[in-house]
Every structure is written in structure tokens, then in C-alpha cells.
């Protein structure tokens, strides 16, 4: 039975208060590696939005119409990963044929996405929370937008902190983590806007 959660709350919470990255720690690797550069961050962010929305929906269908009827739910990790890899591959091919500009801006980031934990994470959350199809799609879209927002914000901040003088050990990753900590606090601050957490 799908939980009875208002769509808007789910959407809002997945972008802000329960941001897939800042509250659930998913998709950190590429987040830290790519946020050095603002243009790449934008491209990867958009790619994540698209892939998350598709994979959450497709995995919902696979889960509810294939795995559950066949009693194969224990194989879900493998199946979800295969679906994600295929969706990413297909998107890459489609974008390559449709628009060269789009491919250069977005397509080159697609291979990075298969190993982004946020993608598998959203599908697993969808399974464990027993969302309906629409809820899964909204949750996927919201999580993607939240991830995009977070990486853009961090890329902008890192552009500033890059030039600041800090202690040798703190430079780079250490400073980035502490910045992310402050961002996470700020995002939790959205809680007051809507009674979700």
C-alpha cells in the first residue's frame, strides 16, 4: 500500500529538507569531484535530473510488474543497476543523434552517472517506502532537482574559497566538507516553510 503523502510535500521535501545529497549523503563522489568546475556541475546536474526521473519510474514498473509477481525481489539490486546502466546508455545514444550541442553539454556526463549512488539510492528508497508510480516519479524528479541545486551552490562557493588562504591540510577536500556541512544546515532550515520533518 502506497503511503498517503501529499505530492507537494514529497516534491518539496525531496528538493530541500531531505535533499538526497545533504540529508541522505547520496551521490557524494561525483559531487565533490565535479563541483570544482561550475559548467561541468551544471551539465552533470541536469543529467542527474533526467536520469533520476526516468530510472525511478522505470524501476517502479520493473519492481511492481516483474520482480514482485515473480517473487524475485531479492534480486532487485542487480536488476536496478542493470536498468540504470541501460537507461543511461540509451539516453546517451539518443542525445548524440538528436543534438550535438546537447550532447556536448550533457551527454559526456552520462557515463559518470551509472556509478552515482543517488540514482540507485532513489530507486531503493522508492522500493522500501512503497511509493506509488506517481510518487516515485515526483520523488525522482525532486531528488534530481535537489542534487542539481546543491552541486551548483557548492560549485559557486568553491570558486570563492579556491583562492582563500587556509592551513595546508584544510585546503581542498577538508574545506569542501565543512562547506557542505554548512549548506546542509541551511537546507534543513527550510523545514519551517512546510511541516514535513
Amino acid at each position, binding site marked *: *500500500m502506497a*503511503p*498517503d*503523502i501529499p505530492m507537494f510535500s514529497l516534491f518539496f*521535501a525531496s528538493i530541500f529538507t531531505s535533499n538526497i545529497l545533504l*540529508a541522505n549523503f547520496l551521490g557524494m563522489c561525483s559531487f565533490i569531484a565535479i563541483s570544482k568546475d561550475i559548467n561541468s556541475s551544471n551539465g552533470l546536474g541536469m543529467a542527474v535530473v533526467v536520469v533520476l526521473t526516468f530510472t525511478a519510474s522505470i524501476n517502479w514498473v520493473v519492481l511492481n510488474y516483474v520482480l514482485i509477481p515473480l517473487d524475485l525481489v531479492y534480486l532487485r539490486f542487480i536488476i536496478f543497476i542493470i536498468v540504470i546502466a541501460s537507461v543511461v546508455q540509451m539516453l546517451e545514444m539518443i542525445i548524440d543523434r538528436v543534438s550535438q550541442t546537447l550532447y556536448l553539454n550533457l551527454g559526456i556526463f552520462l557515463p559518470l552517472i551509472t556509478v552515482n549512488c543517488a540514482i540507485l539510492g532513489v530507486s531503493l528508497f522508492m522500493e522500501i517506502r*512503497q511509493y506509488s508510480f506517481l510518487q516515485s516519479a515526483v520523488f525522482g524528479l525532486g531528488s534530481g532537482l535537489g542534487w542539481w541545486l546543491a552541486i551548483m551552490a557548492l560549485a559557486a562557493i568553491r570558486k570563492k574559497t579556491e583562492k582563500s588562504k587556509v592551513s595546508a591540510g584544510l585546503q581542498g577536500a577538508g574545506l569542501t566538507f565543512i562547506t557542505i556541512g554548512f549548506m546542509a544546515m541551511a537546507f534543513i532550515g527550510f523545514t519551517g516553510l512546510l*511541516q514535513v*520533518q
Partner: protein
Amino acid sequence: MNKQSLPYTVVFSFIVCFAFVFLLSLTHQATREQVQLNQQLRLQRSVLSALAIDYQDDQEVLQLFDDIETVERNGMTLYRIDRDDEVLYARIFAGSGLWGTINGVVGVNEDVSRTVALEIIDHNETPGLGGRVDEPEFKRQFRDKPLDDGKIDVIREGDTEGVDGRINAITGATGTSNAIETILNREFERLRDALRGEA
């Protein structure tokens, strides 16, 4: 044999997939009964906890559960036990938490004026935040708690000890705490309807 050729790649992939899935199915089958037993035990343990019955081990759970009577009222399944001159009921509930369904068992006395205990079966709340709904600290508050006008009131600040119906919210998880309040108050309502005229 050329290991980069297409036939080899296909055959290799097929064999690897087959071997892994086969091994996984074996493991799954081997542990299946254990998993089902776990679920059944978990349910029985939860019902016992909700009726404030202590147990030591799984063997005792099965034994104690035999004393509990299963009854149907208004289409609801209730677990009933006679103890210390009173009749206690437990009911399994399900309701929406912040992130997904919260399943649990709540025990009440006959006229639903007091909770006996609360037990959570499963939930999908954020670990460490709403997830603390399943911690003894939170659940203990429901041990023999008199209701206030048939309801509980989950509050963030103020005295709760000795005040009828008042429960301390989980720190940092207002959403989950409110969800628990809504779910339980609705259950009390239903239980009252079902048990009316029993006494």
C-alpha cells in the same frame, strides 16, 4: 580461443549471470524459512510488548503467545488477554509516517482510557531522527499512559511525566511525531467504536 570475440563474450556473460543468480537463489531459498520465522516472531513479540508482557527468548514468545486470544470486532483483528481483573486489547496498526508506512501495535485497556504499551513493527523514517520512534526512550512513554479525553497529545516542550495524554515529541523529528499522534488518535477512535458495549 579468442577471448574478445562476440560468441565468447556472450557465452561468458551468460554463464556468469547464470552462476550468480543460481547461487543467490540457493541462498534465498535456504534462508527463506528463517526470514518468515523472523517475521512471525517479530509480530508475536510486538503484540506481547504492546500488552506489556515480558519475555526472555523466542521459545517463551511462542509459549506466551498461546495465552492470547484472537478476536474479531467490527472487522478488526484484536489480540485479547485477561490480566489482573481487567481485559486488555492490542491492535496492529498502519499509517503514513513522514516517508512511508509505519506499522506497529498498540495495547489499550477495555474502555480505551489508557494505553498499555506501544510497539513499532517497522517504519521507514530517517535513521537517527524519525527513526527514533522505535527506541525504548520514546516507546516507554506509552507504558500505562492515561489518555486525555481519549487522545494523546505529542508536544515539543513542557512536562509530560504524570500529565494525562501528553507525550514528548522526538527531537528533530516533528513530522514523525505528529504522524504518530494522528495515527494513534485515529486508532483509539476505532478501538472505542469496536469495543463499545464490551464491558
